[in-house]
């Protein structure tokens, strides 16, 4: 016990010797983290854009979608993981279903905000030029909604990276597994390194999405 207290008192926040010999472990966790995040974002986007377009057309669907995903979004991720384990077991699916659901709420809301903000005049002009509904949606409405969709994507990206740390609790790796290691072994380095890397990853990913927005929507500068 005394030895342990002594060890604790000299445990630095980052033990560079440990870090230099465990770089593959850290990079592996980072890779898993990026993979879990990328799947949640890509799937969320694929679901949200059509769902948002449909909800924009129908008021009933809009209420149903916002109500359902709003309630889903309120439920803590750990609770959803726990509820899904008996059905989908300790698998990637168990982690991805809640993450995707959260992203769908954020993205659908922003698709709706973007589509709602398309000026009536623009739609009239497009109709006057002979656009049919689908080309009008693809070439006029969605491009004008892109800045709002990108804003949602940035929020979703940063949130997902933070929440993915919790997936380690159901044994799915990612940076959270290093936080868990630090907790279980009472050892600062993996915990501090993983927390810093998670924040850094969120900031870098946010910049990347903002950069993609600059390329895709050069007329609307991200804030």
């Amino acid at each position, binding site marked *: 016990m005394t030895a342990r207290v002594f060890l604790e008192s000299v445990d630095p926040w980052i033990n560079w010797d440990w870090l230099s010999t465990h770089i593959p472990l850290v990079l592996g966790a980072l890779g898993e983290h990026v993979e879990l995040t990328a799947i949640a974002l890509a799937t969320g986007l694929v679901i949200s854009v059509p769902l948002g377009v449909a909800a924009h057309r129908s008021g009933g669907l809009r209420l149903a979608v916002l109500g359902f995903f709003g309630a889903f979004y309120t439920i803590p991720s*750990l*609770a959803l993981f726990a*509820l899904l384990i008996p059905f989908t077991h300790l698998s990637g699916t168990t982690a991805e279903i809640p993450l995707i659901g959260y992203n769908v709420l954020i993205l659908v*809301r922003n698709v709706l905000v973007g589509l709602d903000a398309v000026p009536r005049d623009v739609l009239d002009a497009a109709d006057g030029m002979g656009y049919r509904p689908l080309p009008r949606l693809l070439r006029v409405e969605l491009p004008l909604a892109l800045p709002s969709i990108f804003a949602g994507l940035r929020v979703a990206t940063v949130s997902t990276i933070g929440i993915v740390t919790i997936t*380690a609790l159901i044994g799915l790796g990612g940076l959270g597994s290093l936080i868990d290691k630090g907790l279980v072994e009472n050892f600062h380095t993996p915990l*501090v390194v993983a927390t810093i890397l998670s924040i850094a990853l969120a900031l870098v990913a946010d910049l990347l999405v903002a950069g993609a927005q600059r390329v895709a929507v050069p007329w609307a500068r991200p804030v």
Partner: protein
Amino acid sequence: MDFLGLVWRWLADPNHWQGSDGIPTRLVEHIHLSGESVLIGAAIALPAGIALGHYGRFGALAINISNAGRAVPSFGILVIAFQVFGLGDLPIVLALTALAVPPMVTNSYVALREVDPDIREAARGMGYRELAQVLRVELPLAVPLIMAGVRTSAVQVVATATLAALIAGGGLGRYIVDGLATQDYVKTAAGAVLVAALALATELSLSGVQQLLVPRGIRLLNAPVAARATTFKVA
């Protein structure tokens, strides 16, 4: 018996409704930890956000604090607080408070900024002193958005308090964490149902409070305030 039936049996078992690991005790612990953190967070965040919004200063800071807050992994912050401060409620409340502050600062800043400049002018023209102008003109108009921020914070704090069980804290998260550790997935799922119910109840009851606090004249405008609240999820 199917799984949901087992979960229902667990929840209905009288043995799980008494003692130091009973549902009432864990629920009170959870509400206590969350309530304390939201109140401390509000005492810091609301005056700061309201003052920044009133004077229109440091807007970038007030808005970006929520972006920064989203990037911080709640699990990591809880464990770091635990290793610094050791066992007990202190590290939990500190970490939860830190997570509660950003959405409340951002929302109250935006709420005060969105007060129509003509209304500010009118208040000044009617001879309101600065404090009275803030308290009696700007704040009532800002209540919907400020309360949306408080609601967002509270729901996130209740969600993150679930993780307190990982650092030997109490609360409803205990059932989830203990169930996972012993592969008792019925207990885990029962805990998850309770946590989800508490999060939804928090959201609904604070929406109710928000409705009550909004002055009638503004309620009649029926602004879709909820959609403009800061999106913030960390757990």
